[in-house]
C-alpha cells in the first residue's frame, strides 16, 4: 500500500497517510466546493487499509482548524471506519487536536467520540 501525501490548499487540508507507520494526519482547513471530489480517492485507500489486520497501533490525528458541515460528514465516516477497525481487533487511537480557545472544535470532537466503543480517543490542544 502506497503513502498518500496531499499538501494543503486554502480550502482543503493536508492529507498525510503512511501505511507503514499506520498513521494518518489530517490538518488545516476543509471547505471545498465538493468534498467528495477531494476525499473520494484517498478514502478508498484508507478504507481498504482499515479493513486489514495490523500488528501495531493505528493512529489517526485530526488537526483541523476549520471544516464545514459537508466535510464533517467525511470526519464522521472516518470515525465509523476507525471504530470498525478497532472492533475487528486492531489497536486504534484517534487524536483530536483543537486550538486552546476553540470550544466549537473541542465539542465536535467530544460529540464524534460518542460513536466510539473500541477505538481510543484523546483530546489535545495545539501548542
Amino acid at each position, binding site marked *: 500500500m502506497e503513502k498518500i501525501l496531499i499538501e494543503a490548499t*486554502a480550502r482543503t487540508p493536508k492529507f498525510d497517510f503512511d501505511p507503514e507507520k499506520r498513521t494518518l494526519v489530517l490538518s488545516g482547513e476543509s471547505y471545498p466546493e465538493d468534498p467528495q471530489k477531494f476525499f473520494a480517492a484517498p478514502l478508498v485507500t484508507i478504507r481498504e487499509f482499515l479493513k486489514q489486520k495490523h500488528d501495531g497501533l493505528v493512529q489517526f490525528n485530526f488537526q483541523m482548524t*476549520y471544516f*464545514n*458541515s*459537508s466535510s464533517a*460528514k467525511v470526519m464522521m465516516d472516518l470515525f465509523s471506519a476507525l471504530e470498525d477497525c478497532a472492533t475487528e481487533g486492531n489497536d486504534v487511537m484517534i487524536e483530536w487536536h483543537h486550538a486552546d480557545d*476553540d470550544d*466549537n472544535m473541542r465539542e465536535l470532537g467530544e*460529540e464524534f467520540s460518542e460513536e466510539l466503543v473500541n477505538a481510543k480517543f484523546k483530546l489535545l490542544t495545539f501548542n
Partner: protein
Amino acid sequence: MNGQSFLDFRNELSNRGIVFTYSGFLNDDILTGIGNALRTKLALDHTDSKVSRGIFSAFVEQVQNVIRYSAETQGPEVDEEGVVTDDPLLNQEIRYGMVAIGDRADGKRFVTCCNMIEQKNVPKLQASLESIRGLDRKELTKLMREQLKEGPPEGSKGAGVGFVSIAREANGDWDYEMVPTEDPNMFFFCFEAYF
C-alpha cells in the same frame, strides 16, 4: 449617471450596519474571495477569535446553500444533444443570492443570506428549520452527529446539516423568513445568524 443614488444606496447599507454585502450571481470563487476579505476585516478589527470563527463558518455554510439551492440559476450551457460545452466560461452554473454581514445597534453581528426558493420547497425547508428552533448548543451538537451518521436527507446535495451547524455555532441565535414575491411560485428565503 446618478452618483447620488449610489451614495444613498451606500448610506442605506451603512445605516443598517452592513459592512460586507454582495447581491448577484454567485459561484464558489466569490465565496473564497469574500471569505478572505471577511477574515482580514475580522482580524483587523481584533474581533474575538470565537466570534470570528462563528461568523466565518456561518458565512461559508450560508453561501454554499445559495450556490447549491437558489432557485434563480443560470448555466451551464448545453448543445442540442444536451451535452455540456467544454468552454470553461460556459460550462459552469451560477446562482443568484444576497449576502450581508454587519453589526446590529446592540453590538451583535449578523450574517444574512437570501435567495429565491420555489413555493413547492417552502413547507419542507420550513419544517426542517422549525424542528431546530429553540434547540441549544448541546442539543444541536448531538443532532449534528446523528444527521451526519444517518446521511443526507432526500433531495439534499450536502450533508443536510448545514443549518444545524450554523444554528449551533450561533448558540441557537438565528432566525429566518419566507417572504412572498409577486410570483406565487417563488418565495424570498432569508436566513440570519447572530454572533
